């Protein structure tokens, strides 16, 4: 049958048909590779999105609500020994005495340094400790920022906590945010934010 066809078809036409066959094969291989690439790149799923989004905001709100433990021996000038709330008393105190590193209303033992420190130093130590014990131990990269806004001036009240990717944190990559956690203090509005990537 093929021989018969070849007899009928001129040689130019036959070459054209072979070219068409070749093109079809090339298209099929390209489509196959395209599918492979699509499946290889499709990696994120529902769980990843859920844990990141929920985790960031829940971690942030939990940190803000936590009371400092009794082992921190927090002494306040007027109250005496107390267990201040991080997102209320400590941040307020830090913002108020930000420009006075030698004095703050609360004086607590930092979980990292093990010494009585200024509220701002304590805030950084306690937040670092809490994040390291949770997100850090689950191999997550994160960033924590706390800034005071007074008028047009925006200033960090503590040095940002940046963990992961060789100190780059979540800069330049897809990240989830806790959203701004604004706290009204006597010194101005303090905005706290946690990024997770």
């Amino acid at each position, binding site marked *: 049958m093929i021989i018969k066809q070849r007899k009928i078809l001129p040689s130019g036409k036959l070459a054209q048909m072979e070219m068409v066959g070749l093109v079809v094969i090339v298209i099929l291989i390209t489509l196959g590779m395209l599918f492979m690439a699509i499946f290889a790149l499709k990696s994120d799923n529902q*769980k990843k999105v859920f844990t990141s989004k929920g985790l960031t905001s829940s971690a942030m709100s939990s940190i803000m609500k*936590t009371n400092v433990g009794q082992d921190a021996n927090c002494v306040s000038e007027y109250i005496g020994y107390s267990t201040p709330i991080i997102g209320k008393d400590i941040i307020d105190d830090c913002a108020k005495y930000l420009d006075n590193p030698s004095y703050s209303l609360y004086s607590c033992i930092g979980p990292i340094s093990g010494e009585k420190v200024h509220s701002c130093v304590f805030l950084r130590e306690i937040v670092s400790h809490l994040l390291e014990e949770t997100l850090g131990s689950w191999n997550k990269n994160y960033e924590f920022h706390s800034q005071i806004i007074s008028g047009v001036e925006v200033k960090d009240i503590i040095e940002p906590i940046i963990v992961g990717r060789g100190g780059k944190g979540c800069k330049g990559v897809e990240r989830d945010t806790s959203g701004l956690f604004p706290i009204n203090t006597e010194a101005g509005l303090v905005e706290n934010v946690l990024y997770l990537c």
Partner: protein
Amino acid sequence: MNKKGQIRMSETIAVLFIFFVLILFGLVFYSKYQTVALKEKQEELLANRAIETTLRTLFLPELICSDGETEPEDNCFDMLKLRLLNETLQRNLDDYYFELFSYAKIEVQEVYPGNATYLLYDKPKPNFKSRESTYFVITLRDELIGKGEASNSFGYVKVGVYS
């Protein structure tokens, strides 16, 4: 002429051979893909179950901080409830809580200031192959510690589902 026909025949056989080799490649690739896709689907289903179980735990009325108000507080467990929950869970494990959590392990870990661990629920699947764990940061509210006001601790809930 006979020789020419033989050449054409072998040419046709070669073309058919390559065609079937290509089809075989396609079938092998498709079966491999199906195996991987099936495994991924199983993992996805397990992850979804882990998420559902975590959400059920987070909003469990037996645990959540209610404060006597209509709206309960999100991501917060009441320590008074938590300390007594294990007993309740064990008493009603098969007739109620198994329907909610299925084969799973639920733990609450206090991170700061204490480091207590509370095992709430553990029902391992016989001959389980793997366990998918989900973590969630929570506040642990204790009305007994604070002076006048409740004291909040920092912790997390770990929900592992068996497959």
